C-alpha cells in the first residue's frame, strides 16, 4: 500500500499505531509501577535489581515491549505537538520524530540488554 503524506493515510496509520501502543503501555505501566513499589520495600540496590532481572526472559520481554511501545507512542505524540504548537510541518518533522523514535529504541534496548 502506498502511504502518502498528502492524502493523509500516514496520519491514519500513525493514529492507529499510537492508539495500539497506548493499549500496550497501559498494563505495562501498571506492572512497572507495581514492581517498583514492591522492589523498594527493603531498600533499593543495583544488586537486588540485577538479581531479579538477570537471566529473566520474562522481564526482558516485558521491558523490551515497553521500550518499543514507548518509543513509537512518544515519537508520534511529540510530532503532533511540534506540528500544532510550533507549526513545524513537512518531511523534516517526520524525520525528527523518526530520529527521536530510533534514539529511544537504541537507548531503551541497551538498558534492557544490560538488565537481562
Amino acid at each position, binding site marked *: 500500500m502506498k502511504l502518502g503524506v498528502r492524502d*493523509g*493515510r500516514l*496520519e*491514519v496509520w500513525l493514529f492507529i499505531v499510537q492508539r495500539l501502543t497506548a493499549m500496550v503501555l497501559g498494563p505495562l505501566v501498571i506492572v512497572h509501577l507495581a514492581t517498583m513499589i514492591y522492589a523498594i520495600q527493603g531498600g533499593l540496590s543495583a544488586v537486588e535489581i540485577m538479581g531479579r532481572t538477570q537471566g529473566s526472559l520474562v522481564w526482558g520481554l516485558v521491558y523490551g515491549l515497553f521500550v518499543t511501545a514507548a518509543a513509537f507512542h512518544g515519537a508520534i505524540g511529540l510530532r503532533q505537538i511540534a506540528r*500544532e504548537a510550533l507549526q513545524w510541518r513537512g518531511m523534516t518533522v517526520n524525520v525528527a520524530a523518526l530520529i527521536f523514535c530510533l534514539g529511544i529504541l537504541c537507548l531503551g534496548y541497551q538498558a534492557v540488554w544490560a538488565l537481562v
Partner: protein
Amino acid sequence: MSEPEPQSETQSNRMLTVDIWRGDAEDGAFQTYEVPQMESQTVLDVVTYIQRKLDPSLSYRFSCRVGMCGSCAMTVNGKPRWTCRSHVDSVVENGRIQVAPLRNMPVIKDLATDMSVFFDKWQKSKSQFVPTDGDASEFAVVDPTSKERKAASAGIECIGCGVCYAACDVVEWNPDYLGPAALNRAWTLVNDSRDGDAEGHLRAVATDAGCHACHSHQSCARNCPTSLNPTASIAGLKRKVFAAALKGRL
C-alpha cells in the same frame, strides 16, 4: 383598582455598558456604548440598538432573529453564541457585555466575519450526498431504529452557524483543520443508508487536517446552540477510518 400601567420597554433606567469590536481584518479595537437595558432584551437587540440609534456605521449580520438561520452568531463575553437567542440577563456581567466577531474567521468589518473559509471546508470534506443509484422511482426504506440512522439523526440538525468552528482550539492551531461542522456532516452521510459512497466520505476526512486532528476538547459540543455533539461524530469517524484502514479500504 386600576391595572398598573405596563412599563414601556424604553422606560428602564438601567444602562448596559457594551464593548463592541470595531475594525476590519487588519486592525481594530473595542468601542464602548451605553445602551438602555430592557425586559427580555437579547444581545442582538443591543447590537441593533447601537446601529440604529448610536452608530449607524456598525456592521453586523442577522436574518431570522428566532434561532433558525444562525447568521447572527458572535462572540459574547468570550463565548460564541447566537445573539438572537442570548438574553442579556443570562450573559451580562456587572452591567457589562462584550461583543466581538466569531473567532477563527477573517473579519470583514466590525462584527461581520467572512465565513467562506468555514463553508469551503464543507466542500473539502466532500460532504455532498451521493445517491446509491440514479433510479429514484422507489422510496428508500430507512429503519429509524437502526444504529446507523440514530447516529445520523443525532447530528443532522446542524444549520451551519459556525459557532462550533469558532469555539474550536484545533482550528486555531491548525487553520487547515476541517472543523467540527464539516466533520459532523460527513458522519451523518457515512451513516446514511441512502448514501452510496461511505468510503469516499471517509477518505475525504482521513487527511492531514481531518478527523484525526481532533483532540476531543468538546468545545464544539459545549457551545453548539442546537446541542449537537460534533466531538462524538468525529470520534465515530475515527473508528470508521480505523476499521477501513485495517481492511485496506482507505
